[in-house]
């Protein structure tokens, strides 16, 4: 069998380097690499062996696994171990979709394009690595590899306050990473795992004392949750989004937040089953707080990107809620939600970026009556908003519905909190649309450049997937549930 994951990693790595040195042709290289990446991801789907009774892989339940010795000392066994299951496959698909959409959307980037596209490629490389790594050290390396390009994307291509935002982003996520690293290393050494591999840690962590599990979980949770982000460690997100270039915002919301969710599922929830059970009330509290806070604050925002950023906090709060339910249905919902949010928030950030490119501002109070001047952009913004507030036949609905069923199944009437917040979510999107898209025209420049084809194409790709998976969510669900996770049929 082909070592497909290594081939993809090599493709992305070579592609990244090539993009950095491609000068003015960087966008063509980036597009080519993204296309190859998408094809390879399709092959990965085609060859997925996680289906029940089909597992031929080295690590039970994972597909396309590869393990090579990397750093072996007498007591230290670090491997290059990679593999995918249904959860990571879906998020890898998200990576591939967002990468190609971002590259196309950013086609007109003229400010040092080689650096820009190279950093975009590097971000996607890191994300892909996080999703496939089955070794603690490898996971951490890729995790950190995502921070650096994002720091430069914000800090160099960003808005007027970019230095502040980039530094804030970096300090927040880096402090969280360090706590997470301590947690991961403690997990390895306390559990007495024979190697840094996921499978050996998974097996060894069963024997940990309950209190130790709780402490380890808290450390890991802090590391992952700042990425989510959870309230009150969320203030880096709106600043980073507002200052980041559009492509950066898309990757930040679409991929970086998902790393937190994926990490939590893979390295904390699965590995420390007792801890999540013990800490459930705390997690619920944080999740509800994030859900309410994100939604209510979005209502008060004037900047389109800040509004979408706060709605991300709300949606990722639902993801945390679904994960904290500690049920297979909850996990399914969490992964679906992450995928849905990745696509939809990408679309929304792109539309906000286009509004900025067209009209020179994203201020909701300044703008008004955009629809006649840019019907296509208005339609896309409306479609994104409707998908984000959970309209059926768009991707947000099956995800949110599953999450609410899982919540109801797990904690009963507490489901009212996210349900009622849904009204607030609808309110801030509708109000935003009323002010920005409808009503008499105001605050518009005399000359509007018109939406370039590449921006429409980038948004069109995301919209197409929003509709496709909204109508046929089973395409994703069938992959997710065939994962080696407790309660799923695949086990």
């Amino acid at each position, binding site marked *: 069998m082909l070592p497909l994951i290594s081939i993809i990693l090599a493709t992305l790595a070579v592609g990244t380097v090539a993009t950095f040195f491609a000068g003015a042709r960087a966008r063509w290289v980036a597009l080519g690499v993204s296309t190859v990446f998408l094809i390879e991801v399709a092959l990965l789907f085609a060859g997925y062996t996680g289906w029940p009774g089909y597992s031929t892989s080295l690590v039970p339940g994972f597909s396309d696994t590869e393990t090579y010795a990397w750093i072996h000392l007498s007591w230290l066994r670090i491997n290059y171990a990679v593999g995918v299951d249904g959860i990571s496959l879906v998020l890898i698909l998200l990576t591939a979709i967002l990468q190609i959409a971002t590259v196309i959307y950013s086609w007109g980037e003229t400010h040092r394009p080689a650096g820009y596209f190279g950093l975009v490629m590097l971000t996607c490389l890191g994300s892909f690595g996080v999703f496939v790594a089955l070794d603690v050290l490898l996971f951490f390396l890729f995790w950190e590899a995502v921070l650096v390009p994002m720091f430069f994307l914000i800090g160099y291509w960003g808005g007027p306050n970019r230095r502040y935002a980039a530094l*804030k982003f970096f300090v927040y996520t880096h402090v969280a990473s360090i706590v997470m690293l301590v947690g991961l290393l403690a997990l390895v050494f306390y559990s007495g795992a024979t190697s840094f591999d996921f499978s050996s840690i998974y097996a060894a962590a069963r024997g940990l004392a309950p209190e130790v599990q709780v402490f380890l979980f808290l450390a890991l949770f802090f590391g992952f949750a700042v990425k989510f982000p959870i*309230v*009150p460690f*969320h*203030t880096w997100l709106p600043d980073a989004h507002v200052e980041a270039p559009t492509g950066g915002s898309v990757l930040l919301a679409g991929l970086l937040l998902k790393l937190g969710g994926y990490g939590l599922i893979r390295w904390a929830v699965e590995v420390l089953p007792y801890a999540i059970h013990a800490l459930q009330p705390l997690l619920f509290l944080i999740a509800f707080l994030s859900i309410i*806070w994100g939604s*209510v*604050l979005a*209502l*008060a*925002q004037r900047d389109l990107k800040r509004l979408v950023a706060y709605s991300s906090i709300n949606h990722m709060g639902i993801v945390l809620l679904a994960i904290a339910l500690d*049920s*297979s*249905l909850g996990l*399914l919902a969490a992964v679906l939600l992450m995928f849905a949010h990745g696509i939809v928030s990408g679309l929304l950030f792109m539309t906000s970026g286009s509004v900025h490119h067209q009209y020179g501002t994203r201020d909701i109070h300044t703008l008004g*009556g955009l*629809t*006649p001047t840019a019907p296509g952009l208005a339609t896309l913004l409306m479609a994104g908003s*409707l998908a984000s507030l959970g*309209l*059926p*036949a768009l991707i947000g*609905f*099956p995800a949110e*519905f*599953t999450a*609410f*069923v899982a919540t*109801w*199944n797990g904690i009963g009437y507490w*489901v*009212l909190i996210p*349900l*009622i917040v*849904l*009204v*607030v979510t*609808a*309110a801030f999107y*509708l*109000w935003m*649309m*009323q002010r920005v*898209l*409808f*009503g*008499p*025209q105001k605050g518009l420049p005399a000359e509007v450049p018109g939406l370039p084809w590449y921006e429409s194409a980038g948004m069109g790709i995301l919209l197409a997937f929003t509709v496709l998976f909204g109508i046929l*969510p*089973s395409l994703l*669900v*069938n992959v997710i*549930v065939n994962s080696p996770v*407790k*309660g*799923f*049929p695949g*086990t």
Partner: protein
Amino acid sequence: MGLGVAIAFGEMLSPGTYTNVQITWLHLPPAPGVFPNGFSLVMGTLVDPLSSLMLVVVTVVGFLVMLYSIGYMHTEHGLPRYYAELSLFLAAMTGLVLANNLLEFFLFWELVGVCSYFLIGFYYEKPSAASAAKEAFLVTRVGDIMFLLGIFLFFYAYATAGPNGGWAANGFVFAHNGSPFLAGVMGRNTPLLTVAGLMILGGAAGKSAQFPLHVWLPDAMEGPTTVSALIHAATMVAAGVYLLAVTSVFIGFTPTDQLAIVAVGGFTTLFAASMAVVHPDIKRVIAYSTISQLGYMVLAVGAGFAMVGLYHLFTHAFFKALLFLAAGSVIHALGTQDLFKMGGLKKHMRVTAAAFAIGGLALAGIPPFAGFWSKDDILGSVYSTLGSHPLYWPFFLMAFAAVFLTAYYIFRAWFLAFSGDHIRDPTLPPPHEGPWVMQVPLVILSGFAIVAGLFVFAPGFASLLSGAGIPPTYTPTDLGLSAISVGLGAGGIGLAWSLWGNGRVYVLPDDSALQPLRRLLLNRYYFKVAYDAFGLRVVYTVARGADFFDRFVIDGTVHGFERMFGAASDRLRRMQSGVVSDYAAYVIAGLLAIFVLLLIVGPYVVARLGGA
């Protein structure tokens, strides 16, 4: 659409048959633990008596409104958008009608809601239209949330009590041949089912604009009149009633739920009718009338007569669409919706005047027009239950009183617009009848408004109505009640004629004791003001406060840490004096600290812990 009509009439010819086709939308195979039987959500179509009845309404009215639109909308901009959204609406509405389970029902329910949002906001340059669209979406969203919770509760009830056990929603389809299976399985009055039923009622109240979620429907008149006729009178707003009917037929309500439904419906009839009495806007008068009539349907379903309610839905769809299209014809000719500017139109617009009068007579419940049969059947059916449910009495009386108001306000509108010999506002353009594409639907709908009530005596239709639940029936008691209600209706028309007939305009004296009431009614009982204040003042203020908190307290804490570390590092920096002996001193201090740790603290800790 023709296909839909064919299916519907085909069903009429072979009543009582169920055609159920479904596919699996989202499926989790069985696994130990949470999914003992798997988890499955299906999408399917179910053609049964209920859905075929609705299908007739949706397709016939939809077709006529489309036809009418060709004339009514021909001067507008954005016609591709208009027809696309209208077609999407019809598709979604057909999907809703044919849905074979609650989840699919909800899916299409949301889709028709969003189409309604688009179409209310069709004239999006108008701030009032954009605002009304948002309001409609939000208010129905409140209902939708309750509906969704109701679905969860029913799923849960089914999962625990249903024959399959577990979360097999696959079995949760409306294909139980008209038996309220869940109530049958769980017993008639469990708390869970009661709450679930109340939530379904909440969803229906949002969509059908029942009290207290009624505020959006009058404002939805900002959309084109054709949209008001199709969506906000005939089809979509009736979906709430349809939901209640479907739920009552296939799942079953508990007695507590029934009382709540009767209360909401009965109260809404009078409440909405009272607001229609004073309103000067021709479309809003009809809109209030829609709310009021939907109240009758809800009342009937709540009292356990789902098919009677649907029968009224059926007749109401035709005469209410007729009224709206006739009003649209007037608006098309004059460009105003203010009744007090109109007058004497019957000379210029004979077809429209006749159509509006037929619609009005049907609405007022004058025999043999359509509204008489269905409305009186509702009153009669509810009356027959009063013996066993004394609490139904006040709501029955409210509905009865609303008959009088209904006749009064609709003929007030007719007299104001059509009677007299001249237009009150001379600046308006000379009135003229619309093109034939606008007149033909009026004629066809007038025909339906006359005869639709008589369908109940056609054998095929009657057996269709009896296909699920208790069919409409006529007993001698009904006839007595009918006499009273027709009398009330005639009285209402008479009062309208005496105050407004022949071009008269009745002005309420300033010192009249009724002035405060009039103001209350004109201000719609201050509901909209209160909701707006709640939204803008309370929620937005809270949001602004939270934003302030976020920026200055949470982020302020972050910046505080930043300053603290900055200040601390500033102090520490000063230690680097450059003086060698200072450094030497630090080295020695460090050495001392190590000695202290190793020789004093270390043994102490070991002594305390090591022994254990």
